[in-house]
């Protein structure tokens, strides 16, 4: 069996180069891979393109990496009311932003995961989101072309991982994590608990091990709104 379990957070983020495209799971304070984010902050990787629903909660979540100026471009649906470090960098033009409707953000990542080269949708037609995108009528509905979002890495927060990389999530901490885990070339998981292969009932696996490349145990960190 290929060894996927890493002994430390710093080893789990080793080899991530400057300029990497990285997806970060999490929504509403739940399911954020905060330990991995802090490891990447220690590593000091720069010029990152970040793909995430939001842009941090003060110094928590992605806030730390905006504070450190490690991110140059972000693809997000809702930067959020407490993303002050992002907003400062954005106002100073040190970071650029592509705003994407939340469900379309999911589907563009899922398209990348599924080997699709794009899809049409009615979401965003006639709005700023449609600017520069191909539009055509499909079934009598104005539709725009959306392209896949690929990434080099995904940072995932799971509840339980087996040593092969099968994952479960807790409650609504699941959110973006299973989608991002499928969409990136290398998926790095922080899990509350790592268990032997075979100890998660196959019926209860949410992310199958084929999508997971690195696993590290870490007790979850949370940042209040």
């Amino acid at each position: 069996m290929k060894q996927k379990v890493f002994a430390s957070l710093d080893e789990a983020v080793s080899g991530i180069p400057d300029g990497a495209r990285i997806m970060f799971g999490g929504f509403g304070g739940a399911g954020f891979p905060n330990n991995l984010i802090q490891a990447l902050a220690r590593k000091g990787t720069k010029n990152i393109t970040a793909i995430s629903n939001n842009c941090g909660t003060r110094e928590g979540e992605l806030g730390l990496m905006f504070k450190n100026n490690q991110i140059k471009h972000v693809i997000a649906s809702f930067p959020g009311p407490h993303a002050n470090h992002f907003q400062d960098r954005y106002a100073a033009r040190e970071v650029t932003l592509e705003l994407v409707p939340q469900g379309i953000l999911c589907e563009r990542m899922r398209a990348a995961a599924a080997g699709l080269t794009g899809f049409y949708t009615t979401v965003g037609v006639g709005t700023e989101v449609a600017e520069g995108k191909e539009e055509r009528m499909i079934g009598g509905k104005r539709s725009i072309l959306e392209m896949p979002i690929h990434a080099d890495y995904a940072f995932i927060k799971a509840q339980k991982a087996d040593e092969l990389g099968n994952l479960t999530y807790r409650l609504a901490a699941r959110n973006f994590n299973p989608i991002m885990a499928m969409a990136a070339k290398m998926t790095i998981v922080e899990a509350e608990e790592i268990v032997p292969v075979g100890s998660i009932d196959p019926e209860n696996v949410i992310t199958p091990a084929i999508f997971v490349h690195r696993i590290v145990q870490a007790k979850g960190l949370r940042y209040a709104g």
Partner: protein
Amino acid sequence: MPGDGIQKNVMPDKPRLSREQIAQRAAQELTDGAYVNLGWGIPNLMGEYLPKGITVYFHSENGILGMGRRARPGEEDFDQVDAMKVPVTLIPGASFFHQADAHLMTRGGHLDVAVLGGFQVSEKGDLANWKIPGAKGSGGIGGAMDIAAGAKTLIVCMEHTTKDGAPKIVKQCTYPLTGLACVDTIVTDVAVIDVNPEGLVLREVAPGWTAEEVQNVTGAPLIAKERIPDMTLG
């Protein structure tokens, strides 16, 4: 500016519904067994005012169906939060799923009703609700565009006019759009209005208001039958 090109009207000195009362009126649009998504702002208050005896399955875009009331102090679980980051309880029959499936439900016409806040609604039912022109910062879309595009029935809850008295129901939206021709019903502090193919139809007025007075604070023509009933809070 809101209502550019539209003459600001003197606001009638009559009582308007509070935000809670708007939510209370809008909650009466929900029926037993409905799957419903509530947006930020006034819509988020509706859960408190469900008509007696009905069960509604509230949907959250982070992957919950069947949210109950907000968690009380001591019972919060911060892995079980709504889209506003508030810890919630579940009702029997609830389920969890990932964000893509949550939005498959919003876009794919699977929810019965979605309720959003609004900055402007046009006479064709166009909605602007995510960015105020000239506001500081990046703005944010969240799930609003997916919801606007896919809801079977979309209700907008908002105050009828801006703080300056400019109409928020207009011929054409001047704020950045969320979706085209997506709104079905508007519930405000002075009226309930349906967006029909023939135009904006005034269904109810706040107690003490006349159809003409509602028209005077509205930036698009309203179609009004002879007698318009008062809004009741159930």
